[in-house]
């Protein structure tokens, strides 16, 4: 079950830059899907909603608002509302994308084309790094550079190295947790698919676990999106909130 990846090298200003075409494709598909889904669910908005679509989006909005205000005052956290909304929607949709089917090219490398973009550590670590960098940016912006550097020396000065290391472990755990969950889920889905295509007995034995695992993966996908946003907001609140 070793899948190849369609890596392409592009020389830009003399530097070779590599792209994983499969991941790039899935990022674009996922982004477009998220955008159009949200876009068409929020047409004909009204103060007195008539359809379920608007209500559903408002529920999501209030849900994310709940996540943020659970960690910090809304006066500080309100500015992260749209970020968190986009993040949770994008990660959730990305997690679901790999579930219904997978596509492996019939070449000698078994190049994997269709998968969750979040089953690529590069994607999840990029998102995690973005969030961690944002925590530092807003930490400095909202509390001042003095308070920002002071926060490394808490509770005592010799904790500073651990606090600095912590920032990197936050980044790694945030990204790799999401990647690991989704990647493992898809590996298992691939194995079950292989089992089901191996023969009549394999199909009979594999269909129940396949369905169970797909259902469970939907749950995991939603939970992981929630956890990612939740932890991002926790890290943000550590840096942004004055009292904690």
């Amino acid at each position, binding site marked *: 079950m070793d899948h190849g990846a369609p890596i392409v090298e592009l020389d830009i200003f003399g530097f070779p830059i*590599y792209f*994983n075409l499969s991941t790039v494709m899935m990022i674009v598909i996922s982004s477009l899907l998220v955008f159009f889904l949200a876009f068409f669910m*929020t047409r004909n908005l009204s103060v007195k909603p008539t359809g379920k679509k608007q209500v559903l*989006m408002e529920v999501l909005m209030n849900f994310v608002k709940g996540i943020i205000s659970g960690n910090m005052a809304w006066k500080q956290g309100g500015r992260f509302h749209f970020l968190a909304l*986009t993040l949770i929607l994008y990660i959730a949709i990305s997690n679901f994308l790999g579930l219904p089917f997978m596509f492996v090219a019939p070449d000698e490398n078994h190049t994997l084309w269709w998968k969750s973009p979040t089953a*690529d550590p590069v994607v999840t670590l*990029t998102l995690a790094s973005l969030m961690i960098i944002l925590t530092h940016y807003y930490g400095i912006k909202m509390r001042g550079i003095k308070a920002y550097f002071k926060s490394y020396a808490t509770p005592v000065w010799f904790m500073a190295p651990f606090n600095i290391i912590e920032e990197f472990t936050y980044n790694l755990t945030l990204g790799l947790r999401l990647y690991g969950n989704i990647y493992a889920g898809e590996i298992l889905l691939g194995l079950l698919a292989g089992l089901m295509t191996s023969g009549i007995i394999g199909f009979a034995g594999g269909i129940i676990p396949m369905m169970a695992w797909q259902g469970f993966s939907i749950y995991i996908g939603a939970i992981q999106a929630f956890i990612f946003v939740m932890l991002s907001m926790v890290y943000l609140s550590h840096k942004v909130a004055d009292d904690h």
Partner: protein
Amino acid sequence: MEFLFLTTLGTVPTAIGTSLVQLVAFLILIGALSYFVWKPLKKVMDNREQLIHTEIDDAESQNKEAARLKEENEAVLRDTQAEISTMMDNAKQQAKKEQEDIIHDANTRANQMMADARTDIEREKEKAIEDINSQVSELSVLIAEKMISKEIDQEDQKELVSRYLKEAGDK
């Protein structure tokens, strides 16, 4: 520019391109969703919140207004009732006074009339007595003339006069 298909997952340099794509895609997604989806949705929700707030405020102020009007009406009603009862009392007193006045007037007039009548009667009576007296004296004179025509002596005359005088004195 050179395209090259590698067969296995690359090392760190392969991450850079994909990472950049993800970053750019996510930033664009945030911008697009914020502009096309979240902002309108938030606006609608804020409008609703605002609307509910104003509706509640309106209802409260209207309730207050209604309570105030009720109070006012009750006060007016109370005032009116008090006024009516005073007016009734006044009217009653007035009527009573007028009644008393009328009765008093009637009494006075009746008394006056009775007194007048009495004085009239008295006067008539006196007049009648006077008349009678004058007639009597005339008659007396006539009688006296008749008597005088008869022959009476000095003695008899004397006695007669004194008797008359006595009688007149008794009256």
